[in-house]
């Protein structure tokens, strides 16, 4: 073969090798090489899975003022957000998301809790601490508590250690506490020497005092297990909420998916996607022969690039999002179909294959761009107004459209140009029967 052909063949093979290699890398992952890490799509944590695939809960609380005269304000909601964040961090939910919705709602997304209904109550509790004497008169609130931590030791000297929560009081609190304990201790003859601690209107501790306690430390003990003690400490440390947060059936919403269900959803969707791609490839090759092979390579490039984008952007992949990608595959092929049909038409009109390819691309381009822009508009509206899994769908749909525009137009064009250079110009290779070509070449403008 001559020099020109040799160059074309090598370009072609190189391009194919690149595409296939890219696809393989994205699918299987690279070994842990320096900065690449392991890129593979199936590596743990490579792709950020949404809660409906990973398992987790989305809790939306509605904020309600604590008394009838109260109002919800923007500042108040900002406080709510901050307290929530601290609380979730303290409870160990470091991957949780907190954000405000509308005027009076706060939404929390937590991956992987095993008991969502209990979590709703704990996380959403107002956490108002109230210290009272035995008559129920409050002398101090949680505002004077600097910090709380769970402790495991024998606090009541009976030889058995138990869990309790120790409180550090600020200077003002230390004074109040000292005064209160002094007063209470003086009432021991009437058996009223007790200090009670309330959390949100229920008693969590009622301890007897025998003397003034200075030093600014108090302790809450009861029949606590480790989990409860740590939760309580976390609640107190996060601070109390300015409003009551409700998620109880009439207010707010809860959406929770167990990890097992999420796994099943992911598996079946991947299988569906795999089979779908295969069917499309077969269909394209049957209908468009050589062009079909080219579009298959374009599809491989599309899948590979989508995989990389998902990993790099850490976009949340939800179940509808996967549907969006799979749908996007069908739509990516759409651009190819438009262009290929145009090319076939040009060939039938009598143009040489090279000229037909060129004309096909330029004529079809405006239709391809217009249709992709309208899909982007719809996806954009959906992204802006939607939330949660629906937003995930909008994001992957937008990504699909943009990536498919790239692969269907540029990648395919490059392959085709090289194909022409290689001399793959027989019209039958493009799916056009000889008898369909008009005798006189119609010189279209």
């Amino acid at each position, binding site marked *: 073969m001559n020099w020109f052909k040799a160059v074309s063949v090598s370009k072609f093979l190189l391009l194919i090798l690149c595409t296939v290699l890219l696809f393989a890398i994205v699918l299987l992952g690279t070994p842990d090489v320096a900065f690449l890490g392991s890129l593979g799509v199936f590596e743990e944590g490579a792709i950020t899975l949404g809660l409906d695939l990973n398992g987790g*809960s989305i809790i*939306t609380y*509605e904020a309600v003022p604590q008394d009838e005269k109260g109002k919800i304000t923007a500042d108040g909601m900002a406080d709510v957000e901050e307290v929530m964040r601290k609380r979730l961090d303290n409870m160990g939910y470091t991957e949780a998301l907190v954000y405000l919705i509308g005027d009076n709602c706060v939404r929390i997304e937590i991956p992987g809790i*095993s008991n*969502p209904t209990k979590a709703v*109550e704990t996380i959403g509790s107002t956490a108002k601490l109230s210290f009272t004497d035995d008559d129920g008169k409050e002398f101090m609130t949680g505002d004077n508590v600097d910090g709380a931590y769970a402790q495991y030791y024998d606090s009541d000297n009976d030889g058995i250690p138990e869990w309790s929560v120790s409180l550090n009081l600020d200077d003002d609190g230390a004074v109040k506490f000292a005064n209160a304990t002094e007063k209470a201790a003086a009432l021991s003859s009437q058996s009223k020497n007790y200090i009670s601690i309330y959390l949100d209107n229920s008693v969590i501790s009622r301890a007897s005092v025998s003397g003034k306690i200075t030093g600014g430390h108090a302790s809450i003990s009861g029949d606590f297990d480790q989990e409860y003690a740590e939760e309580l400490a976390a609640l107190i440390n996060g601070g109390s909420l300015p409003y009551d947060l409700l*998620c*109880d*059936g009439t*207010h*707010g*919403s*809860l959406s*929770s*998916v*167990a990890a*097992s*269900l999420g796994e*099943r*959803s992911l598996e*079946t*969707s991947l299988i*569906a*996607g795999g*089979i*779908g*791609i295969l*069917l*499309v490839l077969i269909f394209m090759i049957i*209908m468009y022969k050589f062009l079909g092979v080219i579009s298959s390579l374009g599809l491989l490039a599309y899948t590979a690039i989508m995989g990389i984008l998902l990993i790099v952007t850490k976009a949340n992949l939800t*179940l*509808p999002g996967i*549907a969006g990608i*799979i*749908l996007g*595959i*069908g*739509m990516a092929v*759409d651009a190819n*179909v*438009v262009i290929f*049909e145009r090319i076939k038409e040009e060939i039938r009109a009598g143009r040489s294959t090279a000229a037909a390819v060129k004309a096909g691309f330029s004529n079809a381009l*405006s*239709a391809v761009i*217009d*249709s992709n822009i*309208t*899909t*982007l*508009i*719809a*996806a954009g*509206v*959906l992204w802006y*107004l*939607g939330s949660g899994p*629906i937003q995930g769908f*909008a994001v992957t749909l937008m990504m699909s459209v943009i990536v498919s525009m790239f692969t269907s137009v540029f990648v395919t064009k490059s392959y085709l140009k090289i194909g022409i250079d290689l001399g793959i110009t027989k019209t039958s290779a493009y799916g056009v029967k000889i008898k369909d070509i008009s005798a006189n070449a119609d010189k*279209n*403008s």
Partner: protein
Amino acid sequence: MKNYNFMKNSKTAFIIAAVVLVLGVLSMLIRGFNLDIDFAGGTELSISIGKNVTSELDNIKAIVKDVIGEEASSVAKSGSDANQAIIKTKELSNETTDKLFEALKEKYNLTAETFDSIETVGSTISGDTQKTAIVSCLVAVALILVYITIRFQFTSGLSSIVCLAFNIFTMLAFYSLLQIPVNSNLIAACLTILGYSINATIVVFDRVRENNRKFKLAEFDDNANLAVQQTLARSINTTITTLLTIGMVYILGVDSIKDFALPIIIGIIAGVFSSVFLGAPLWSKFNKIFKVNAKQNKKEKTKKA
């Protein structure tokens, strides 16, 4: 098929469309919609009981009535092995949900800690979802109309809006006919179809525009007819490839994604029908109504060669 005159035979197409519309309206009035909790509020729970749900329906319903004090709105089976039960009730508080789980856990000796999935939507939030659905569709339609008017012509914009409305209506009609749960997936499905089916219409209109430019002396109807015939292969093949992919998702996917894929499939089919059989004839009719000479306007409005 290539020699079928789409313009002259448009009456048949309109009749078919009318039949779909009438059936749809009847279904919506008589059967109504199966509003999911996103729109109506309520609680939906799914649980694997390890046995065939169909035989346990009565038992499950009895347990639900016992725990929450009233009948469940529905108990259905799901999952490929029919061992999963989907229970829908009015809005439940967290404690009631827990109690219900404990009752079912005891009856069926389950090891899980809680339901496979829990969805509770309060009535205040569901009202918002309804509003969002309608607003997003209207906004998207308006934007698309503006875009088409800029790229093509106002009368073609009108025609494409009618086609879009037909597609969405057909989807809603099937939601009612097949009682597919109406939830926020509806919004996604509708907007996807809005963005997708307009593609087919644009490809046809693009061709009509080109033919009008090339064959200035021919009648609009003849150019339009030719355009539809020329783009027919593309319209059909694209529909097939998209149906192959989303069809697989429908066949193999879990229940929640099936409810998402089916309306999209219906929308795609309605889309290809409307863009091939309704789009160009409507454009021609609108031209006549608004007394627009499509080709005259073309000369002034064409920006892109």
